[in-house]
C-alpha cells in the first residue's frame, strides 16, 4: 500500500513499470513455445532447448534498453536463440559442412548412415523392442535436414505458422521457408518409405 507521502508521479512510475513488466512477461510467454521450437529445430532434439532459451532470455534482459518495446525485444530473441542453438550444435557435433540448399540432403545423409551403439534391455540383454520403430527412423531422418529446414518444418507442422510468420521469425525469405518445408516433407517420406520397405 502506498504511503500518503508518496508523490503522484512516483505512483505513476510504479504503475507504468509494472505494466511494462507484465507486458514483457505476456510477450515472452506467448513467444516461448516458438522460441523452444527454433532451439529444438536447430539442435534436432528437444533436450537442451530449454537451456538455450533461458540463456537467450538472460542475454536479452541485459540488452533490454536497446529496444523500444517488449515486442521488439522478444522478436530479437529469436535471432539470439537461433545463434545460441547453432553454437551448441557446433560444440556437440563433430565439424561437418551442412548444405544449406534444401536439395542437398545427400551431402549430410551419409554422416548418420553408420549406426551408433544400440540400447540394450538391462534385463534380457536384447535390443530394446521398437528401437527401429517409425519414430526412431523419423528422428534420425530429421538429422539429414539442415538446421533451418528443421526449424521451418517444426514451425509449420507443429506450430501451424504461416510462411509469412516463419519469414518474420527466422528472417529468411518466404519462398525459402516454403521450399524447406516442401523438400523436408519429401525427404522424410522418401526416407521413411524406404525404411518401411526394408523392414
Amino acid at each position, binding site marked *: 500500500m502506498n504511503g500518503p507521502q508518496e508523490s503522484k508521479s*512516483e505512483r505513476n512510475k*510504479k504503475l507504468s*513499470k*509494472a505494466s*511494462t*513488466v*507484465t*507486458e*514483457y*512477461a*505476456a*510477450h*515472452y*510467454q*506467448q513467444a*516461448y*513455445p516458438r522460441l*523452444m521450437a527454433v532451439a*529444438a529445430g536447430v539442435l534436432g532434439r*528437444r533436450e537442451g*532447448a*530449454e537451456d538455450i532459451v*533461458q540463456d537467450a*532470455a*538472460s542475454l536479452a*534482459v541485459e540488452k*533490454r534498453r536497446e529496444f523500444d518495446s517488449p515486442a521488439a525485444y522478444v522478436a530479437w530473441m529469436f535471432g539470439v536463440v537461433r545463434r545460441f542453438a547453432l553454437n551448441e550444435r557446433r560444440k556437440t557435433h563433430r565439424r561437418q559442412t551442412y548444405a*544449406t*540448399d*534444401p*536439395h*542437398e540432403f545427400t551431402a549430410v545423409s551419409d554422416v548418420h548412415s553408420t549406426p551408433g551403439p544400440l540400447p540394450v534391455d538391462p534385463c534380457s540383454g536384447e535390443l530394446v523392442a521398437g528401437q527401429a520403430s*517409425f*519414430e526412431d527412423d*523419423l528422428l534420425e531422418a530429421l538429422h539429414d535436414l539442415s538446421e533451418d529446414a528443421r526449424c521451418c*518444418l*517444426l514451425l*509449420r*507442422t*507443429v*506450430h501451424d505458422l*504461416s*510462411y*509469412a510468420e516463419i519469414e518474420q521469425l527466422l*528472417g*529468411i*525469405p*518466404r*519462398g*525459402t521457408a*516454403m*521450399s524447406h*518445408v*516442401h523438400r523436408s*516433407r*519429401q525427404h*522424410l*517420406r522418401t526416407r*521413411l*518409405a524406404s525404411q518401411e520397405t526394408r523392414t
Partner: protein
Amino acid sequence: MIRPELPSDDSLLDAYLDDALEPAAREAFEVRLGNDPELARQAELQHRINASLKANFPIDEASAEHVAEVTAPLEESEPVILRFSRRRWAWLAAAAAVAGVLLAWGTSGPRRVDPYFEPTPLAEVYNATVKQGFEPYYECEDDERFARVFSKRQGIPLALLPMPEGSRMLGLSYPGGLSRDTTAMLCRVDGEPVMVFVDQPEADSSLAAEKSAASEDLYIFRDEHDGLVFYEVTPFDTPRAMQYLTIR
C-alpha cells in the same frame, strides 16, 4: 515459351495437408486419393510423419516460475524497485497468461491460408531481399558447389565467368519468384544490389517482369539460353551480371 505453372502432385499434397486447397480442388484431390493408391500412401505417410513430429516436439508452454525468473531482472535493475512475493509473482504470471491469450486473440484473426505456390513479380522479390539486408542465403565461393546447386535445382550446372572490377557475386538465395526452385544470384555492381534469377523455361511466367510503383526505377532483363531462363533485376539500364552465367 511461357506456360502457366501446373502444381505437381507433391505441391498438391502439401496444399492438401496444409488445408490450403479451395473446396472444389480439395474435393477433386480427394477423389484422386481414392483412385491412386500411391498418392494415398504418400498422404497417409505424411499424416503419420506430422503426427509423430507433434508427439516428439510437443508445444512447450513457459511455466509461471520460468517467466518470473526471466522477468525478475527487469524489476531489480530499475530505479523503482518492486519486489514481489512468490504469491504476487504467481498473480503476475497469471495476468501475463491472460494478456498473452488476449494478445494472441487480438492479432490472430481468421486463419490465413498459404497457397501451395504463387509466382511473384521478381522486382517484388528484389525489393524484399534488399529490405532484408541483401544477404545471400548461401555464400558460395566454391565453383563445384555453385555448379551443383544449379544442377540440382535447374537440372543444368552453371558457372560464373570472372566478373569485371566493381562487380562481385555475394552468393545464392532461393527466394521463390517463378517457382519454388528459382535460384537467385545476388551481386553487388558498383555498390548497387543486382539479382539474377534462374529457372527452367517451363516455370516462366508473364508475372515475372511485372513492376509496381515501388519498383518503377528498376530494370528487368530477360534472356533464355542453354535450356534455362534468366532474369536480371537491376537499378542499371543495361544487364551487368546475367551475361557472366554460363553453362559449365
